[in-house]
Every structure is written in structure tokens, then in C-alpha cells.
């Protein structure tokens, strides 16, 4: 059994079903990313784990205890909000010490633990400052240190990187992962950013419309999406979907290559690709076009700059996908299904 168990969790705000039946089990020391577009219910889900929102139905178990009806303080959790929610009138030291004060910890223990947490995050020299004197990255570290001193059973992070600028985000992501691995803290990380999710998560739970669509490790989610939502939410550009012979055919833009480039002895499926527009991104070329003879077929091919085939907009070329890279989805439900026997191409 996991450190955190969610069973049939539902939350309704009036008519709106924000979270609509979620089951999830999170193991000790694991970093699980909850990924989804805005409004998919991922933050509500996390708030129910934190105890800030009472579920309409279902149970939350943390460390074998049913905490569904308990207030946040009794749940053995720590949380970092998107805004970091530092207490503006307190120094960094007092901010980090606040959870210990609330627990009425002795002064020495408090000082020791604050030192320890500040040491891990490299913010000892900031302890006397006020939050408004800190940069975004420093604030984030203070918020993490404050979560850390509680030594919680589970740490909840609500888009903690989205307030940082793009460059800082990359290094913060790296540090966050190091820190989580070294301390082995069970962590739930909520984000709408697929790159964060792919880069950080031991496992990813993809949510949409209040439901978890798929749970799996990043590679699994990317390679074997459970439905068309997951297929098109992950990947940039997203998976191509072609409607053909009554089902949907999916393949990643990077597997869709000109026939002469797609060497190797794997079995291939060829498509006539009418090229509409070429976008050169430096490291890649994106080719936008349509596959002839298929419906609903805006198709994109992503060629790494190492592929030096010359292509012109307005022409039609033979493009190919390895049969093993093709995915089939049900046209009605969008769910993944087994490839039909010897068909396609």
C-alpha cells in the first residue's frame, strides 16, 4: 500500500464536477506529477489531499491513516503554493520556523532544524531578510525549506516553478529533482507543463475533465498514450491523428519521415504527404501538410536538422512511419485499441 492512497475521490462545486472519481496510489519516496490543462481538476485534487477542500465523496489515506475528515494540520503534509505564500512580515528564519512554532518545538530544536533546511537549500545567508528582499528563485527555496522542516510524510507542490523565468526554471527543475531524490520525500507535483512533468516525474498522472486518463512513467505515457487526449496533450507538436478505415491512426511527428530517410529494416507504412508549409526552428524543421486519401488529417512531420533532405512547399512526397510506431484509437471513445490484423499502409 502506498504512502498516499486516493479512493474514488470526487469534488463537486454546485453543478461542476471538478474531480470526478480519482483513484491513485503513491509509493514511498516517489515523485508523482499530476499533469493536465488548466481547469482539469488537478489543483482541486491536491487541495483535497492537503485537507483544504473536503471531498464530496471518496477517501484520502496518508500513511495508512484515513485523513479524509481531518484538517490540514493533522495530516502530516507540507505544501508549497504557486505563489510561495511566504509570510511577508516575517524574516526568512521565522518563515521557515513557523511550522515548528505551531508545533511548539523547543527553541534549540527549532534553530537546528532551520539551519539544516536552509543548508540543504543554500539559503543560510538570507535568514535575516524579509521575503520582499528576495528574488523569485530565493523565495521558492524558502518555501521549500519551510516545507522541509516539518519532515512531512508527503510534500505537495502546486506549480512551484511557474513563477520563475524560463532560464531559472530549468536549473530549478534540476535542483528540485536532486533534492527530492536525496531526501527521498514522497512528493506530489502539480503542473500543466508537460516538459516539467516528463523531466521530473517518476510517474505521471494525466488528468482531464476531473478524471485521471492515464498513470505511468514518462516514457510509457509518451509512447503508449491510453487515449487521444493523452496522445495530443503530450508532445510538441502533438501526435498526428488520421482517420482511416473507421479508426484513428496515431503517430508522433518525429516518426513521420521522408521514405528515403526512414532506413532500417523495420517494416514501414508509406503515406503520400502533401506539404503545405515549412517552419525552420533551427534544431528542427516542422513540415505542415496533409496526407492524401485520409480524412481529418492535418499532419506534422518533425525533421531534426541532421536530416538534410530538401523539401518544397506545394509538392507531394512519400513519407513513412514504422509499423511499430503506429497507434490505433477507437473513433468514438478515443480509447486506445489493438492494431487491426494486417491493415493500413
Amino acid at each position, binding site marked *: 500500500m502506498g504512502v498516499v492512497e486516493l479512493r474514488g475521490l470526487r469534488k463537486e462545486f454546485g453543478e461542476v464536477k471538478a474531480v470526478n472519481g480519482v483513484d491513485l496510489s503513491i509509493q514511498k519516496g516517489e515523485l508523482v506529477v499530476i499533469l493536465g490543462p488548466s481547469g482539469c481538476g488537478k489543483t482541486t485534487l491536491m487541495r483535497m489531499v492537503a*485537507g483544504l477542500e473536503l471531498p464530496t465523496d471518496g477517501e484520502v489515506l496518508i500513511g495508512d491513516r484515513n485523513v479524509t475528515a481531518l*484538517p*490540514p*494540520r493533522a495530516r502530516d503534509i507540507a505544501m508549497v503554493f504557486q505563489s510561495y*505564500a511566504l*509570510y511577508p512580515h516575517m524574516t526568512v528564519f521565522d518563515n521557515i520556523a*513557523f511550522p515548528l*512554532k*505551531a508545533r511548539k518545538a523547543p527553541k534549540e530544536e527549532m534553530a537546528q532544524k532551520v539551519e539544516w533546511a536552509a543548508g540543504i537549500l543554500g539559503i543560510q545567508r538570507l535568514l535575516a531578510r524579509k521575503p520582499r528582499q528576495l528574488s523569485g528563485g530565493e523565495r521558492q527555496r524558502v518555501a521549500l525549506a519551510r516545507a522541509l522542516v516539518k519532515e512531512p510524510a508527503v510534500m505537495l507542490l502546486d506549480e512551484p516553478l511557474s513563477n520563475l523565468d524560463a532560464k531559472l526554471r530549468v536549473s530549478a527543475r534540476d535542483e528540485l529533482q536532486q533534492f527530492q531524490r536525496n531526501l527521498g520525500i514522497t512528493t506530489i507535483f502539480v503542473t500543466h507543463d508537460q516538459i516539467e512533468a516528463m523531466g521530473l516525474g517518476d510517474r505521471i498522472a494525466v488528468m482531464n475533465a476531473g478524471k485521471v486518463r492515464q498513470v505511468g512513467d514518462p516514457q510509457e505515457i509518451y509512447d503508449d498514450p491510453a487515449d487521444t487526449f493523452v496522445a495530443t496533450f503530450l508532445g510538441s507538436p502533438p501526435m498526428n491523428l488520421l482517420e482511416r478505415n473507421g479508426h484513428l491512426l496515431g503517430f508522433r511527428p518525429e516518426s513521420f519521415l521522408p521514405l528515403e530517410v526512414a532506413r532500417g529494416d523495420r517494416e514501414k507504412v508509406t503515406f503520400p504527404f502533401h506539404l503545405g508549409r515549412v517552419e525552420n526552428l533551427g534544431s528542427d524543421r516542422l513540415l505542415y501538410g496533409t496526407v492524401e486519401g485520409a480524412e481529418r488529417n492535418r499532419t506534422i512531420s518533425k525533421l531534426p536538422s541532421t536530416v538534410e533532405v530538401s523539401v518544397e512547399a506545394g509538392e507531394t512526397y512519400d513519407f513513412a512511419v514504422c509499423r511499430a510506431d503506429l497507434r490505433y484509437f477507437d473513433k468514438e471513445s478515443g480509447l486506445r485499441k489493438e492494431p487491426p490484423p494486417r491493415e493500413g499502409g
Partner: protein
Amino acid sequence: MAETAERTATRKPSEMFPARELSSGAFLADREGLLGILFLAPAVLYIIGLVGIPFFLAIAFSLSDATIGDASLDIVGFRNFSRVIQTPQFRRALFDSFFFTIVAQFIVIVLANILAVVMSRDFRGKWLARTLIILPWATPISLGTIGWKWILDSKFSPIDWVLQQVGLLGGPDALLGPGRHLTYLGVEGLAVSSVILVHVWRILPLATVILMAGLTSIPRDILEQAQVDGAKFWRIHFQVSIPMILPIMSIALLFGLIFTFTDMVVTFILTRGGPVYYTQVLPLWAWFKGIDGGNLGEGAAIALFMFPVLLATAILILRSARRMEVT
């Protein structure tokens, strides 16, 4: 013909419309210096006419022997001040002004905190409760105080009636004594308490509304973070909420201080400073001496004793307002 048409088409708009026509409308609005003076003038005139002149007139009166009968300014130095200070009425008024103000504001801040916390929660009938709370502020002070004068009447007080009905007053061994009435405004301690009560009743709505605004301005994240960090209600209120609304709370406090300190209506209507002169306050005593008694010099001297307090309060208000802008 064709050539002219072509020439017209290639001319720039500025050639077709000479500069004078384009800019004439913007002439006045462009002169920022003149506009600044024009916009500031009404405020400056207002302050000079209604604050500056009366203030310097009061200083002049306080140094002269002016009366209502003879308003000519014969300077007599600080004679008015030394005479005024020697009377027990003045000393009591000075003490009461501070005493009423400080006690009333202390009670107001405590009660306003409680009310603001309650009112910022969600409950049925919240809007009705909010309206009722703001009502004393919307009522003219004089009308409200007349209402209180009836409530505290020596013969017909409904409070006395209730106390009699529940057996606390009027019986042979009733807790509050065998007499049928407490005569709230006729006994020193009760009269002082009554005046303070009415001041509290009057200032409380404003303070509550200001604190409510302060509490709602605290980001929800921070309060939730405090919950997650393990703090309970009292710790959250005293260590997170109150420190965060301190600037706005000091504004509420300073407004209350000024309103109570300078108020003469409540005491005038309720007690006229009595019994004896036990509820006398500076503005009322200044009015009695200067207008009612006709001694403009002494009245002005009494009134000027309020000036240092008001000045200090005004400076504090401006400073805390600036602090709010910064954070």
C-alpha cells in the same frame, strides 16, 4: 488637370492642413504649469479659507481678551492659558478627553477584530448582519445620541425596565439595589461608562468595515499555508492576519482617535458635561467657555490644547498610509 490631381494625391497631410489648425485645440492642455495651478487652486483656497484662517484666528483670539461683545484683538499674552489651566473643569476635561478616547478606542479595536473575523466568514443572513453593523455609522450622530439619551433616561430607561423584570433591580434584595432606577447619566461612574459606550457604538462600524477590508485583502494562499503549517485559529489571527493588516488597522485606530477626541455632540446631548463636570471634554468645554459664555479668548485657548494631539495623529496617519503604499 490630370497633373494637378496627381500632385494633390502625393501631398502629405501636413501640407494640406497647416500646423496652426492641428494644434490650436491642444493649446491650453499642453501648458502643464498653468493647468497644475488651475487644478490645485480650489483645494488651496478651500484649505486657506476653512482651515488656515480659522486656525490663525483661534491663535490670535487665544492671545487676546476678545469676547463676543468686543471682538477687537487686544493682545494679553498667555493670560488666557494660565487662567484656563487653573480651573478644575479644564483639568477634568483634559483628562476625560484622553480617557474617553483611549478607553473607547481600545474597546473598539477588540470588538472590531471579533466582528470583522465573524463577518468575513460565510453564513446565512450575512448581508443583513453587515447592514445592521454599518447602520450606526450612517445615522447622524445627534439623532443616534438622542436615541441613547432615551435609552439611558433616568425614569423611562428600557434597560432599567428589563433589569426590573428579571429581578436584578428594584426588589428588596435585588443584586443592583432596591432603587427602581440606576440613573445612568446622573452618577459619575455610570455617566462616564455611558459616554464611552456611545462613542464605541458610533466608531465600531467604521473600524469593523476597515478591518474587514483588511482581512479580505490577505491572500488566501497565505492563510491556507498557515493552516497547512499546523497553526490553529489564534496563532493564524495573531501571528499572520493581524501583523498583515496592521497598517490598515492603524488607520482605523487613528480615525477613531480623531473622531472621538474632537467630538462634542455625544457629551453635549447625553450629559452636557455633567453630572457636575465629570464627563466634561475639551471641545465641549471650549464651546461652553468661548461661545456659550462669550469669552472667545479662553474658549480659543482651551480648543488649542487639542492641537498637539491632532497634529501628532495626523502625522501618524500620513506615515502609515505611506507605509501601506510601499508594501
